[in-house]
């Protein structure tokens, strides 16, 4: 035993010393420039790794490092880091964007530093950041299993209700959809009680209540055949050969924009602007609309892909949009309420 023990102890000490020593070294930049940007896990990560990363290296010789994190996780990490941002650029949906804005997590954004500024609708740039993509939310269904629903109310009656997959208020699309459902029963932007009351009545029939990230998998496996989701998820699932179609509800589809922001205190300010300028360029925006990525572009020159509920960017401005400054303060109580009402 002794002969075994002492080398182990020594190598352990050496290993610990090596590890400790490595962490003391300063951060070394290996290329002309580097940048850490967040991206959403899944399609966003694939697309940015395949399309944007090599393009940035080619154009500006910047090594892009992608940190795949959901919007709320990014805000959580940036808040926890307290002034030393773990990444240089955020990508966020409207709700988390406001939380981060209130937390003072962004550098002031100067749109004039983008060479592509003229190609983006003016409403999509402000002094907090720039929109990089759009999302349209409506109802997805399996046309081989159920007929097309017309609107939100249909979700709660047969034949759809027993095939319905539900998610709560954790995501932007889930919250927006439940608000729209609530409006059909007398609710409003700030009152989702009617939706919860109606859902509770049909709950035993509902096919699945899951985490947002689990829904595409549940749909794919036939656990549910109707769900609320965005056009991108529909296009991605269709690309995998799954029977799925998108319906714009009678009361209107929901539109919202995904934005990028520069983290306060970043050491890579100039590189961050170069990255954002590239992301909103026609080439990148158009490349991202193609399968298997299926993004909705925000550059006016980018051609919209077929199979979308709208023909132009302008048409989307007529879609239902929600004021997240009003939603955010209520969301915690909605999540709690959803837990209690839906719990078995």
């Amino acid at each position: 035993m002794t002969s075994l023990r002492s080398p182990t102890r020594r190598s352990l000490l050496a290993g610990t010393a090596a590890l400790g020593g490595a962490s003391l070294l300063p951060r070394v930049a290996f290329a002309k420039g580097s940048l850490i940007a967040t991206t959403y896990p899944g399609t966003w990560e694939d697309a940015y790794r395949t399309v944007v990363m090599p393009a940035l290296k080619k154009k500006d010789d910047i090594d892009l490092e992608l940190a795949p994190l959901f919007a709320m996780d990014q805000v959580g990490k940036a808040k926890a880091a307290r002034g030393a941002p773990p990444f240089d650029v955020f990508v966020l949906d409207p709700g988390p964007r406001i939380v981060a804005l209130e937390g003072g997590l962004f550098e002031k954004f100067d749109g004039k530093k983008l060479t592509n500024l003229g190609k983006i609708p003016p409403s999509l740039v402000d002094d907090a950041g720039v929109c990089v993509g759009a999302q349209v939310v409506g109802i997805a269904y399996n046309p081989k299993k159920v007929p097309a629903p017309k609107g939100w109310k249909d979700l709660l009656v047969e034949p759809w209700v027993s095939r319905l997959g539900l998610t709560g208020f954790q995501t932007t699309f889930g919250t927006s959809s439940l608000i729209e459902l609530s409006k059909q029963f007398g609710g409003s932007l700030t009152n989702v009680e009617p939706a919860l009351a109606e859902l509770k009545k049909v709950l035993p029939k509902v096919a699945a209540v899951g985490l947002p990230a689990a829904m595409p998998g549940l749909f794919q496996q036939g656990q549910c055949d109707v769900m609320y989701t965005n056009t991108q998820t529909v296009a991605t699932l269709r690309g995998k050969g799954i029977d799925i179609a998108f319906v714009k509800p009678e009361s209107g589809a929901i539109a919202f924009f995904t934005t990028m922001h520069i983290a306060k205190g970043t050491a890579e300010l100039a590189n961050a602007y170069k990255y954002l300028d590239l992301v909103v360029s026609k080439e990148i925006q158009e490349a991202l609309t193609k399968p298997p990525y299926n993004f909705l572009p925000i550059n006016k020159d980018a051609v919209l892909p077929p199979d979308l509920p709208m023909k132009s960017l302008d048409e989307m401005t007529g879609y239902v949009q929600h004021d997240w400054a009003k939603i955010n303060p209520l969301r915690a109580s909605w999540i709690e309420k959803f837990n209690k009402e839906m719990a078995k």
Partner: protein
Amino acid sequence: MRPLLKFSEWQLALPLGLAFVALFLAPLMLLVGVSFFDDEKLTQPGVASWAKYYGDPFTYKVIADTLLLGVKTVCTTVLIGYPLALVYLDLPARWQRVLLFIIVMPLLLSVVVRTFAWIVVLGREGLVNQLLLSLGVISEPLRLLQTELGLVISLTQIEMPLMLLPLISVMSRLDPNLRDASAALGASRWRTLFTVIVPLSMPGLVAGCLLVFASSTTAFISQTVIGGVRLIYLPLVIWQQALIVFHWPQAAVASLSLVVSVLSVIAALSWLGRRSTGYVHG
């Protein structure tokens, strides 16, 4: 007298001890500190977060459900794992290696892959339902996914290595002569099992139960993906409060509740384990 320069044992444990204080104890204290704030921005100290959390009857249901899930998983892993460990002991060495590989295999797969595989198995159009439908046993698909039954089935498979590895390591050190002696003295196989093997394997069994309990009560991905969000356990509540709502004091209260409730069950199990060791050797 010992030479002055020689390391005593406690000094050797010092790096680990310091790492433990810095990486575990300090964050835990921070968690306790955060829980005593009333607001999300951590400006007003107080006990409102604790009062709100424990003033809500729903909290007790969630804690009870979480602990009960752990108990159910422990029971099923023991019921299936213990006989499997007995089979393992009687196998020739070559087959023991094969069985050991099969037992360890779930640990080699990512938790996401394991969890998704269970969706494929338990789903409405999954393997189990298709088999039962084609055999004519059922006419409508059974609901297995998003039920506690489905969750316990999948956790049993996922946590099985944690039960079997300590169990096998303790049981394979048992003196085979004890079994023969018991048989020679006229005990039946069952009597030998319950009066000789089970008591002697108790330390391994208790260790396995501890690991399975701690792991299944905190298995966030399996709980939410296989169980769905209608089955609410403490990890889901912590995730929602910390990363969706950003109410860190509430998240800290829920986290500490999970730590304390799981630790108290573990303390009880370890006490049982120590007692049984005393019984065996005493």
